[in-house]
């Protein structure tokens, strides 16, 4: 499946060279990276975070400031920023992950709020509400990633690497420990999973992925503003996880795709945009609470099983 998707992605720009469409699919790639990390935290570790846009924003602003203001080369800067964000996540995560449920939701929301306010108010460093512009493009030597087609290959390779990483992680012992944690924390602890450490590790990993996505976002658009990293972005990210299916790696890709495309599709409704957006979310959650992918799969399996049973009954009758 990974190979299939990769081939499809390789060929995609050959058929579709409208820069606008490619821009949208590139945004999907960036969102997918964040959503993958967040899905590990929500779906596998069973925790809730309403503050991942903060890490996304820290990554973006970190890259912007180190390369734009201080002139560091982008690649090492990206790595450095990801490490720094990882440390921040560790520092925040150690006390915060002792909380559970609604308290954790509020704490992460509060963290996002603090980061957003600082980005907005510290205008000498971040440019304040008017944003930060003039971020250099990523480049290999003279080959600069400055148009949509080149960015397409760059971003999607990052996304595919993250996807593979997550697919392998959840099949490893660590991943199975995490799923146990999501089902029942006490039981997992009794079975010898170090739940506290596992939660912190996965939190840091997801923060680093969000930071990477943020750096890519900054270099891809060369302009960022605090609006992209508010609490609504955080809820959008969680919505992508929930729609795609919690604990489904492929679902993350799907959820990110659907929610990113949605505003494009319903642009025609202009005035009713919020209405349609909320409506789709509500309908999916109401009727397919496991997420679209697993929900539809389950529905088909159930239908098939019923059909078979009916056939058998008919055979028995005759």
């Amino acid at each position, binding site marked *: 499946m990974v190979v299939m998707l990769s081939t499809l992605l390789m060929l995609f720009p050959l058929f579709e060279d409208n820069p606008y469409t490619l821009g949208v699919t590139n945004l999907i790639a960036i969102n997918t990276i964040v959503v993958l990390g967040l899905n590990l935290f*929500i779906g596998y570790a069973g925790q*809730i975070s309403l503050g991942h846009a903060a890490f996304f924003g820290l990554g973006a602003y970190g890259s912007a400031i180190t390369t734009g203001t201080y002139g560091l080369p982008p690649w090492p800067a990206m790595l450095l920023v990801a490490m720094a964000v990882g440390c921040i996540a560790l520092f925040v995560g150690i*006390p*915060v992950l*002792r*909380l*559970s*449920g*609604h*308290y954790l*939701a*509020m*704490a992460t*929301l*509060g*963290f996002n*709020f*603090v980061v957003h*306010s*600082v980005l907005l*108010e510290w205008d000498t460093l971040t440019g304040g509400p008017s944003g930060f512009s003039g971020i250099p493009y990523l480049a290999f030597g003279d080959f600069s990633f400055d148009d949509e087609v080149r960015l397409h290959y760059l971003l999607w390779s990052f996304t595919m690497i993250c996807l593979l990483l997550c697919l392998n992680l959840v099949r490893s012992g660590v991943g199975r420990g995490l799923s146990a944690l999501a089902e029942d924390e006490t039981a997992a602890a009794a079975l010898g999973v170090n739940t506290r450490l596992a939660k912190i590790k996965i939190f840091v990993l997801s923060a680093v992925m969000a930071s990477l996505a943020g750096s890519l976002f900054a270099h891809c658009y060369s302009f960022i503003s605090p609006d992209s990293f508010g*609490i609504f972005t955080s*809820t959008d990210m*969680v*919505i992508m996880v*929930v729609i795609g299916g*919690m604990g489904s790696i492929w679902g993350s890709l799907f959820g990110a795709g659907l929610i990113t495309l949605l505003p494009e599709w319903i642009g025609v409704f202009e*005035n*009713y*945009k*919020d*209405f349609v*957006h*909320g*409506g789709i*979310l*509500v309908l999916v*959650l*109401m*009727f397919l*609470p496991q997420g679209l992918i697993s929900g539809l799969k389950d529905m088909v399996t159930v239908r098939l099983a019923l059909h078979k049973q009916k056939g058998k009954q008919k055979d028995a009758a005759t």
Partner: protein
Amino acid sequence: MFQDLLQYVFSGLTNGAIYALIALGFCVVNNTMGIVNFVQVDFVTLGGMLMFSCLLGAGLPMVPGLLLAVAGVAVVAMVVERFGLRPARSNNHLVLIFLTVGLSIILRGIIKLVWGKNRMALPPLTTDHPITIFGASVLPQALWILLLTIVAISLLTWFFYKTSLGLSMRAVASNPKAAAVVGIPAGRIRLTSYAIAGALGGLAGVLVTPITTLNYDVGVLLGLKGFAAAILGGFGSFPGAVFGGLILGLLESLSAGYLSSAYKDVVAFVVLLLVLCVRPKGLLGK
């Protein structure tokens, strides 16, 4: 010096009372359903909007306008519960919470369609000439906020401790399974809790929008502060919600006055995070 302090304390208590009302709404729903009801945020906006329509659209006097607006939000809240949440097929709390986020987006969309995106001004309950108390000048609206918050809390206490419906709601809050076993109808309890949450949010909206301004997303920040207040006090605890609201309001106005008004929200949320580090279940949590 003392006057400044008094001024900050007054404005802190006023905001705190609003946060407390919203926080109580969050707590009521949490106690019966175990979820964070993010639609609460829009009940606040809706309260202000309905008040605006009652006063300037229908030309009603202040008191019936206020009652009608609060009752209207309660009805909308019941509709949200009955047709938005009841049909959900999931017991997963995360799914239900995001269902409320979705419903909140829809409700905000409707508010935007009906009342538009413009900022509006709502007249205060009585004159807007400030009164001087010990050298601090206070808006009459602030006094109304404090007074009506106290009235609302007393009514709520009376309801929970003196009526049979209130008793059943407390039973559900303390043990939902046992409550179901003795035959307390879960549906009606959930509906009532939404109505109460709507009325509280609506009242907060009616009271606060003359001080702030009124537009379609005025409730978002207020509502989140209310959630923060509820968490600060200990989620689900009514005294905790009031206490948390007042503390959050005071923290904000004092840090705006003495530190920096740009970072007042940052100070409030950092204190919240620190409190949660020391007391993971809030100040008055079990």
